[in-house]
């Protein structure tokens, strides 16, 4: 892997870490959700620091160049993040539905009570 690519990845990893860190510090993101980003960030960091000898297996798993492997890993990480987000959104959807139902039921009860008085 070329040194340029290493430096690029290192910069991206650091920028990603800083933005997640700021979001955490300002309380815009709970730690639970930040892990979805921090794990890929660590992987990115490891890749950019990995010694040359490690990249020997690139061809073994069918990638022609190291940079292709890096792109492949990126795509995998994005899949992981997207699936996590889908799960989070679905959970929130269930909660919102519950809230709408309970509030609507409650409103009906209040209305009933007011009518009776």
């Amino acid at each position: 892997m070329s040194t340029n690519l290493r430096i690029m990845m290192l910069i991206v990893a650091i920028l990603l870490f800083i933005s997640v860190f700021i979001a955490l510090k300002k309380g815009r993101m709970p730690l639970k959700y930040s892990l979805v980003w921090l794990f890929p960030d660590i992987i990115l960091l490891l890749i950019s620091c990995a010694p040359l000898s490690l990249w020997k297996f690139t061809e073994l798993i069918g990638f022609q160049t190291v940079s292709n492997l890096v792109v492949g890993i990126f795509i995998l990480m994005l899949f992981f993040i997207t699936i996590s987000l889908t799960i989070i959104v679905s959970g929130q959807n269930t909660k919102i539905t519950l809230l709408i139902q309970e509030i609507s039921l409650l409103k009906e009860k209040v209305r009933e009570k007011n009518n009776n008085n």
Partner: protein
Amino acid sequence: MSAKILLIIPAYNEQECILKTYDSIITYCAEYNMDYDVIVINDCSKDSTSAILDINNIPHIDLIHNLGIGGAVQTGYKYAKENNYDIAVQFDGDGQHDIRYVQDIIKPILENEAEFVIGSRFVDNKNDNFRSSKARRIGIHIISFFIKLVTGEKIYDTTSGFRAVNKDIIEQFSKSYPIEYPEPITTTELLKKKYKFSEVPVKMHERIGGTSSIKAWKSIYYMINVILTILIIKIRRYPSVH
């Protein structure tokens, strides 16, 4: 007969027929001395459904945001649970369902022969009034095939929204109910859990107004969704109730 019975009527943009449906229920109950309670769930209709419900003093719940058919019906089951109903009947607000068949649908539950009952258009050929399109019939057959595959039980009218459930199932539905395509999915789940069911013949009318929740251009998407969900139910584990 002391069972408390609730008719859950989900309504979305049903201003043309909701009052007619309600009146038919009231007239029927007065005539045959039946004691059905009604709750209309107004799924945040954009037309004047809410105003009609208010003016005519029809018992109803206005959802504060549109939830879709599953979310609306589930609100009805929650209401049924809170108010301790023994049987909940799902009844359409668009005039498709005939109030006279409610007693047929709840009968197997009252006699302890079934825990949930589906009002079916296809069990025998009572259906001279109702002509569903050929594509729709094929779709219903395909879903029926998959339900048979997953549960081993034969259901004829898999998409019928005319159904009754007992107290135990009211409790379950109030906790969890699919938001989309609820009928075939809940049927499969209940069968997988080994609930006793019965399918009784009913006549349905052509809808008076409103549009079906299954639109033509969405039907392929609908079929894929339902079949995949049914197959997922096959690999899920459910505790058997009996």
